[in-house]
């Protein structure tokens, strides 16, 4: 986890370092004197060699300091934290909606394979994975805001403003979750123990949820984890359409201002979030499937057994 995080810092820093254009000019404006430009270069340490700048940045990041935003002159971490809740709400709202819709229709599709409902669900989910999120967002704005005038098109002043963004991203999340639930359930429902459960007279709901669904959960959790990371990073598109002051929009706006500390900090923060999400997903695996937990234990045991055997043989 730590080497990956260090690698991310180095890559993002290097990419910003090689970016053409002088950020000092965008801070001071085109009328700045050469003297003031040189002075700010010195202050920001932009004249230092690459490795010195990277070293300083790494040290600062380890101390929780992501630098000062060139645009607002406020600490980047503070800027990120003021926008983070918006992105977080959007991501988790959408993933929550995606889980409910995706799992429900995924199970129904798998249980009633080749039925009309299955075909409709599969087609809609394929549409969901094929459509760009920003286009879905605009279509929803056109229908629900422009034509029907039911919901506000942009802003974030109350629960009403969150419906369209959450629905846009939730629809996409549900499409992938549904496809994974369906294929994973289809694999499980063909297993012998499901036939055994039916043979002993277990009722269908218990078979689906207790026997089949629980065993189909691992790939679903994986896809949910991937979705959370994807939505954290990809929320920028929906935030742009709905003018939500989130982290993604902050990063894209910072690019325009050549505010490199803000871009670096933002990308790094999202990267860190994804690492944490992946870690949580790994932990959840061991709760869903006890075999994964015991496989770690078994490894230790297995390595100890031959030693004892060797000792006896000797």
């Amino acid at each position, binding site marked *: 986890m730590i080497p990956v995080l260090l690698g991310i810092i180095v890559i993002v820093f290097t990419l*910003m370092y090689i970016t053409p254009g002088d950020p000092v000019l965008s801070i001071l404006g085109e009328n700045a004197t050469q003297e003031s430009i040189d002075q700010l270069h010195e202050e920001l340490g932009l004249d230092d060699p690459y490795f010195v700048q990277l070293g300083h940045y790494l040290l600062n990041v380890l101390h929780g300091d992501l630098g000062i935003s060139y645009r607002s002159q406020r600490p980047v971490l503070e800027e990120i934290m003021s926008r983070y809740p918006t992105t977080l709400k959007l991501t988790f709202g959408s993933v929550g909606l995606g889980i409910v819709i995706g799992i429900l229709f995924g199970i129904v599709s798998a249980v009633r394979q080749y039925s009309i409902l299955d075909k409709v669900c599969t087609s809609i989910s394929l549409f969901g994975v094929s459509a760009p*999120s*920003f*286009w879905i967002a605009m*279509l929803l704005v056109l229908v629900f805001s422009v034509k029907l005038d039911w919901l506000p098109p942009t802003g974030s002043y109350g629960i009403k403003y969150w419906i369209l963004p959450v629905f846009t991203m939730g629809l996409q999340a549900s499409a992938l979750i549904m496809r994974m639930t369906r294929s994973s359930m289809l694999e499980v429902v063909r297993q012998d123990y499901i036939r055994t459960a039916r043979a002993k007279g277990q009722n269908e709901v218990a078979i689906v949820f207790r026997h089949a669904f629980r065993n189909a959960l691992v790939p679903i959790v994986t896809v949910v984890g991937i979705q959370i990371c994807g939505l954290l990073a990809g929320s920028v598109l929906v935030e742009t359409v709905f003018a939500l002051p989130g982290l993604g929009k902050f990063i894209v706006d910072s690019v325009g201002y050549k505010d490199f500390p803000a*871009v670096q900090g933002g990308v790094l923060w*999202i990267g860190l979030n994804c690492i944490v999400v992946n870690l949580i997903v790994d932990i959840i695996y061991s709760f869903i499937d006890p075999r994964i937990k015991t496989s770690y234990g078994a490894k230790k045991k297995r390595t100890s057994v031959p030693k004892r055997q060797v000792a006896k043989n000797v």
Partner: protein
Amino acid sequence: MCKQKKQKRNTPMRDVMKRLRKNRMAMAGLIILVIILLVAILAPLIIPYPYDMQDYDSRMVSPNSKHWFGTDNFGRDIFSRILYGSRYTLTIGFGCITIACLVGTLLGAVAAYFPKADNLIMRSIDIIMGIPTFMLALSIIVALGSNMKNLMIALSITSMPTFARVTRAQVLTIKEQEFIEAARCIGADSRRILMRHIIPNCLAPIIVQYTLGAVNVILWGASLSFIGMGVQPPIPEWGLMISAGRTYLRDAWYISIIPGFAIILTTYALNLLGDGLRDALDPKLKQ
């Protein structure tokens, strides 16, 4: 003299094609893709108006018999722009995924075949995968500048790790098999074993990943162009066309909504074909 009937050998490839042909949805996807490809190739000949012709007398005209999909805020024919734009979308989609596939497959195969290189290659891949795809592509474009070439470089780099991982996993199992040992025994060198014996045997998941990866690349390309970090105007890239029409959504919905259908048609067809290929290549579904 009785004619000897030519007997077709049942090769694995022929089996796969047979199974694919039976899948009607996959064939529909393939046909749609071929049509889009033909449109892209023949675009300059079949578009009714030049894609960049501005007619200020007929700006934001709604769809009619003259302009099938209407005109945009510069009076350019949307139908012509969509047809011409297929060239850019397909170039981005298949260009990036081909580069990513070639580099990724080679890296994955080398990592699996030469244990000494494994750690270095796979840890680098892990780091690239650690950064969310969209953010990595965005950062690369910021560093290189936003235009179509750099967009393609960014998307190739971000799509490459999946191929490396898929190939590595395949090669790790195949390299232990007896026919590889046999090849080594008759004196084949590592390059020949990798290129002639191992890689051709792990093509199945790579082909599936190629098709489904192209969908992602097309969507990411359109998304990056949408936020102004990809293809630049006046190129009629579909994501860019959606973005350009955003301001006029209230008065002229067709400017941004219709190009979206073009994206969906392409990605839907690719998804259908990808799903079909996955089923056809899945050894578990063999009869």
